[in-house]
């Protein structure tokens, strides 16, 4: 950390130190800053200021109202009727939305945009923001590589891009009220970039900067997080939350100093705040965090636990206040209230949530088709379950809370139970994990019969490398002396292994509870489970062959990745231009490419204990990462767009490309 330039006045030196310290706190080091800014520049470039799925109309409307100072939806600029706003709920004649925590995050952005609206043009502001991010990125890379000329080049490109944008700027004619959606896009992008930075810090702590960079950049460029990076949906937020919780968990395993205790409390605080966005996901995160944290913490002394408890309690305030204000019950989130267009959400075992016919409170549907979904949040069907329990009388004022507690336990039990049952169905697993195509029983009429559902592997081929885990474990155990039990015992004393265990448990749990909902229409990248994808990427980066490829053959990985983008991009352009693809066909073309790349990287990694060819793994990784990048970029420029880009320059460039649909 710099102590200021010689000859600087003390106040300037102090300011400089504060900035440096703030930067270190947020980004870790120069590498973290590069990861963060790269994520922002890429996502901003592909940003479409629009609704991809129609429940975003609900989120947009709620933001407008919350920014005006009330939770109830009284003004509805993005939809004329309640029926167009899946997810809207009614309480005593008032309408409310959901995901309030996500909306609170966007409010400062909306206020800022409103504040400067009379001063600057919104379209130019977006162009300027991107140019400034590019400037900062060029400067950060110049520092990291010690090549000042890169900063100069970045400055020229940034000014040029802004000038060109000003020449072709048009207003956002497709939106009557663009600023709330812009605010939601901004907050979502910054969340995605935060997740990427957190993964960078976690992995660089374990394996050094190179692996950290690959993981952090990979989060945005090589997983579907990049696809969802600017849409006003919760998936990116959830994904970032899980990475943050795992990274804070890891940081808190290393000692008992103030930093470690704060990191531990921070993990709980993130979960507590998360509950104001999606209580169902937060509850499972909490349920996995508590036992593993307590079992593996360096200390469980009273003082530490007190700090953790207090911080966690405070972090729950946004959820408790929001729920109380809306339903009168601090433990009853909006998702569990009566939907405006009909009855309660039902048990997934009886009728799939989000069934258009069921009229669930949790709905959303594809902008390309229609229909609804709401997440597997089993409902209120059982009514009041605590009436017969004596101590509820003793705790009469807390009765609703206690009642809710048992209700939550019941939901958790049922979700795990149906998730495990679903995990034994091979047909389901095949379509969700391996190959999509035309999947039987998916309600394609809700998406205009377009096959927009990539499987997990098709959307995220890098995840195929994780198939190497069993063979690597077998090879690792057989190589070392001692019993299996000794390995487990010594392994679990290691903070990194503890973090592995936590990440794996968290990822598996959230995957399993969503599995009964899948396959489902309008998922595009199995979006319900996008939140576990960064954890899968963490797992991939932890594998010995992947580490070896990244550390010893970084240049090969970079070169092969660039080659994949170049050759793949040209080939895709020619294909789109000559085959006149419909949107569903374009998505399925990507599916096959993703599947192929996933198989290649899986084979390279699985066979590694035998062949030991790091270079093969390196090429496989680059191919898989590049395939997802191509999907994310093609989606932004051609497949999932209609001239609705945030940047005029990108709109103009995209207009020159062959169309799909």
């Amino acid at each position, binding site marked *: 950390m710099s102590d200021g330039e010689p000859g600087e006045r003390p106040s300037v030196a102090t300011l400089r130190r504060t900035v440096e310290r703030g930067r270190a706190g947020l980004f870790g080091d120069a590498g973290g800053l590069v990861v963060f800014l790269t994520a922002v520049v890429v996502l901003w470039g592909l940003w479409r200021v629009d609704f991809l799925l129609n429940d975003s109309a609900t989120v947009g409307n709620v933001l407008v109202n919350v920014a005006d100072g009330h939770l109830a939806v009284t003004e509805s600029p993005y939809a004329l009727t309640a029926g167009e706003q899946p997810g809207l709920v009614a309480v005593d004649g008032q309408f409310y939305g959901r995901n309030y925590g996500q909306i609170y995050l966007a409010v400062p952005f909306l206020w800022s945009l409103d504040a400067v609206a009379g001063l600057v*043009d919104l379209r130019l502001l977006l162009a300027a923001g991107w140019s400034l991010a590019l400037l900062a990125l060029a400067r950060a890379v110049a520092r990291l590589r010690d090549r000042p000329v890169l900063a*100069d080049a970045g400055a020229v490109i940034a000014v040029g891009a802004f000038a060109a944008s000003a020449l072709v700027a048009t207003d956002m004619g497709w939106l009557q009220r663009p600023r709330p959606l812009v605010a939601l896009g901004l907050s979502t992008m910054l969340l995605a970039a935060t997740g990427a930075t957190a993964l960078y810090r976690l992995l660089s702590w374990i394996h050094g900067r190179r692996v950290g960079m690959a993981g952090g950049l990979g989060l945005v460029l090589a997983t579907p997080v990049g696809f969802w990076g600017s849409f006003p949906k919760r998936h990116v937020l959830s994904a970032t939350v899980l990475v943050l919780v795992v990274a804070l968990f890891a940081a808190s395993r290393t000692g008992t100093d103030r930093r470690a205790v704060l990191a531990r409390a921070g993990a709980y605080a993130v979960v507590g705040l998360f509950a104001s966005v999606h209580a169902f996901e937060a509850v499972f995160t909490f349920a996995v965090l508590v036992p593993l944290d307590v079992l593996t913490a360096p200390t469980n002394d009273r003082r530490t636990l007190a700090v953790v408890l207090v911080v966690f309690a405070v972090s729950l305030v946004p959820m408790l206040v929001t729920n109380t204000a809306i339903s009168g019950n601090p433990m009853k989130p909006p998702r569990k209230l009566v939907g405006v267009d009909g009855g309660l959400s039902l048990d997934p075992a009886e009728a799939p949530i989000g069934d258009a016919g069921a009229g669930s409170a949790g709905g959303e549907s594809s902008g390309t088709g229609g229909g609804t979904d709401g997440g597997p949040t089993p409902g209120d069907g059982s009514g009041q379950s605590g009436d017969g329990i004596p101590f509820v009388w003793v705790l009469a004022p807390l009765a609703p809370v206690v009642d809710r507690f048992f209700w939550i336990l019941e939901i958790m039990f049922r979700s795990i139970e149906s998730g495990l049952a679903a995990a034994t169905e091979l047909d389901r697993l095949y379509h969700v994990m391996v190959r*999509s195509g035309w999947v039987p029983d998916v309600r394609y009429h809700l998406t205009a019969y377009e096959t927009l559902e990539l499987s997990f592997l098709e959307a995220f081929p890098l995840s195929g490398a994780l198939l190497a885990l069993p063979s690597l474990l077998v090879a690792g155990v057989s190589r070392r002396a001692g019993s299996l039990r000794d390995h487990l015992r010594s392994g679990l004393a290691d903070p990194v292994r503890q973090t592995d265990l936590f990440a794996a448990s968290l990822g598996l749990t959230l995957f399993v509870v969503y599995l009964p909902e899948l396959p489902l229409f309008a998922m595009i990248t199995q979006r319900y489970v996008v939140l576990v994808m960064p954890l899968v990427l963490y797992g991939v980066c932890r594998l010995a062959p992947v580490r070896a490829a990244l550390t010893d053959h970084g240049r090969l990985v970079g070169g092969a990745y660039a080659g994949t983008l170049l050759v793949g991009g040209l080939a895709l352009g020619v294909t789109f231009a000559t085959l006149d693809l*419909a949107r569903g066909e374009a998505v399925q073309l990507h599916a*096959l490419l993703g599947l192929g790349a996933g198989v290649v990287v899986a084979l390279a990694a699985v066979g590694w204990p035998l062949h030991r060819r790091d270079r093969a793994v390196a090429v496989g990784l680059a191919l898989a990462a590049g395939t997802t990048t191509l999907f994310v970029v093609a989606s932004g420029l051609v497949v999932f767009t209609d001239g609705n880009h945030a940047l005029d320059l990108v709109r103009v460039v995209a207009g020159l490309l062959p169309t799909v649909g």
Partner: protein
Amino acid sequence: MLDGADSSVVAAALILLALVVLGPSWATPTALGDGTAEVDVLAPTWLDSGEGPTDHVLRDDPGRFGTDASYLRSPPLVVDVSNVSGSPELYYDLDVPALDLDTGPVERRLSGPGRYRLELADVAVPPADYRYRDVEAPDSGVYTGIVTVRVQSFSGQTVVANRTVGVRIAR
């Protein structure tokens, strides 16, 4: 010669200055206004001809890359536009009332004279055995479609072409 840090600062200052100087209403409005234009249809050629209603049959092609749906692909509309006044838009649609198909419409602002090309979205038709509650795949056969091309603005609309075509669902 500026060093890396300085060039970034200068560039940032330039951008922010330009942002403020250009003001709050710089971007070109895209809203539809009043106006008219003359349109000469180049393709599809049958739009201009006086042939019978089922002569020009659009048929569905099997979907590729594992999409079991088939696709109804409408021909692109290519027109020459002249005598543009104000800011009108060109409207192109294919409607098949019996099938509840949604191909568009597409609307394009006419910013000046020249050649314009409008493409309707490909429409997916489900496989014959698709069924969900009361939703069923359409029977094979030839259905009547209506193609509409017009120039429209707030001051009125001029129909360029409006005729029926045959749309074949093949199984």
